[in-house]
């Protein structure tokens, strides 16, 4: 949200020489109960305030489409996620899974599960490529987002993703989430805690020993 913050803080900086505002600042300083810390500068905040919200607040200026994104993706992402987002080895799958969320093998991808396109920008810029965090340019990030949205049939390949629409692109699973938390759940129907002769299943239907995926003791 650095854009808005910059405008607000820029305005304050320009006005700070005027007497009434100086007085207000002084009063504010007096309200600090501990007097600890230093005022953050505009540049300091801009450098660290990298988050992007679903309403687009914080989205940096930039643009990218899937055609350009394919090249960036191939270079920076495909080694782990596969050329088409299908995933390599144990790394996350990014594409596909539409219509699987009710099945007994749900495939949760950016297309099938993620509710907001802004989250793609936020996460890719801050954390990707794995081990090269915050190394992508804003345009490269928009391009990769566009490529993933295109591969998931959410936008066309010439659609320009930018700071103006990163918050408004409608994701297929936008309404797939429930809030607030309905717990506590799974409580005794009777409200009583059984202590004797409880009616519970006591047949052994599975043993971890038989599954045989427990790491061996190295010592």
């Amino acid at each position, binding site marked *: 949200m650095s854009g808005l913050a910059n405008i607000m803080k820029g305005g304050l900086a320009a006005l700070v020489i005027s007497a009434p505002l100086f007085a207000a600042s002084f009063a504010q300083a007096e309200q600090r109960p501990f007097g600890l810390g*230093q005022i953050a500068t505009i540049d300091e905040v801009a450098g*660290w305030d990298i988050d992007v*919200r679903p309403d687009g607040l914080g989205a940096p200026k930039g643009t990218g489409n899937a055609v350009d994104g394919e090249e960036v993706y191939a270079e920076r992402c495909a080694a782990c996620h596969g050329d088409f987002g299908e995933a390599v080895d144990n790394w996350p799958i990014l594409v596909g899974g539409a219509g699987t969320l009710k099945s007994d*093998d749900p495939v949760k991808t950016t297309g099938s599960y993620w509710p*907001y396109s802004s989250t793609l920008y936020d996460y890719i810029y801050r*954390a990707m490529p794995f081990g090269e965090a915050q190394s992508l340019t804003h345009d490269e990030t928009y391009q990769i987002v566009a490529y993933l949205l295109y591969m998931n049939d959410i936008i066309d390949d010439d659609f320009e993703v930018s700071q103006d629409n990163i918050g408004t692109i409608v994701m297929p699973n936008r309404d797939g989430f429930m809030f607030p938390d309905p717990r506590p759940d799974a409580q005794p129907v009777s409200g009583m805690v059984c202590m004797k*002769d409880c009616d519970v299943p006591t*047949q052994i239907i599975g043993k971890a020993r038989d599954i045989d995926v427990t790491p061996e*003791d190295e010592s």
Partner: protein
Amino acid sequence: MEKENKSLSISRRSLLGGAAALGTATAFKTAGAADANPDNLPPNVPEWTPYLGAGVDANPYGMPSEHEAHVVRRNVEWLTASTESSVNFTPLHELDGFVTPNGLCFERHHGGVPDINPADYRLMINGLVDRELIFTLDDLRRFPQTNRFYFLECAANGGMEWKGAQLNGCQFTFGMVHNVQYSGVRLSDICREVGVKPSAKWVLAEGSDSAGMNRSIPMEKILDDCMIAYAMNGEALRAEQGYPARLVVPGWEGNMWVKWIRRLEFGDMPYMAREETSKYTDLMEDGKARMFTWVMDAKSVVTSPSPEKSILGKGTQLLKGLAWSGRGKITRVDVSFDGGRNWQTAELHGPVLDKSLTRFTLPFNWSGEEMLIQSRAIDETGYVQPTIQQLQAERGLNSIYHNNSIATWMVNKDGSVDNVRLG
């Protein structure tokens, strides 16, 4: 966790595979009385007695006895694609009391452990505040201090056990939890210092690690009991636990306890980060997912006997376990030896603290029979730890997080113990 889907599909295949190799139960060898050297036993003078031992400073930072070298965190390699975005597990079965030693607290990283010089540490506060401020570590240490024990549990603790008994160990099925005393600053004090605007309803907490871990936390929780901690169990945070400063979100899922914290942004809506949309949401049978399921419900585990802690001989035994609740204090723990048909109440060992691990014990006699051991925790809100059948009835089989169900340890006639599923 990075790869729950894949790990669960592995488990599904394995389950379908049925009776794979038997007899590969994990061996956890600890020296017992039967391994003793007779030369060191009465009436002989033990070999260590006539000679001087090591002097002071032999270990400027003390380490556990070399005979305890098996008491370590352990990971499950097939769970994740890399150790930098992975998890290991606290050896609960080897611990007593309710404090977890710092070096045994489980690790969960999303981009590895950063190496941060405390001189370079900064905490930035921005957004809907009167004053956007930057604090050094020295600044944080000058605020009023709070010291509190809290458990930290990963929401995915036990996640591999949703569909069936899969990992044969107390450590691997319950070990994504630890309990230490945190020292640090109340966020309510930091809020007063920056002057939070009335329009601020949510806080984005952000780490400075390579994952830039970020989570949205509602303002009420921030003001209630959250803190920025710089110490654990009396010493500086361990690097893998967020050195030099981390967020503490008592009773709520561990992913929110942002480590290596660099920034708090105050806003008027949630930020919908990857870790609160794509991950840490609970997919129900109807294809809809619960989100913002923050509280860790009451849970308990019998740490001994357990798959790593066989019964060594007939006669008097001491059952040990741990219980905890994100909703408050533990008020009661019941133990069953017959798979949940009959229960007796265990002894709780104080201090019983809010949102802290609580130790329980129960003496029993073993005459060599098979047993199905369970424990069931109840907290001060009246919440009762559920069975897996109760959880599955509510949430289906596709959930990963928040499995706080009762586990079953089967004691075999030879005293060995298995993680089993009843149905």
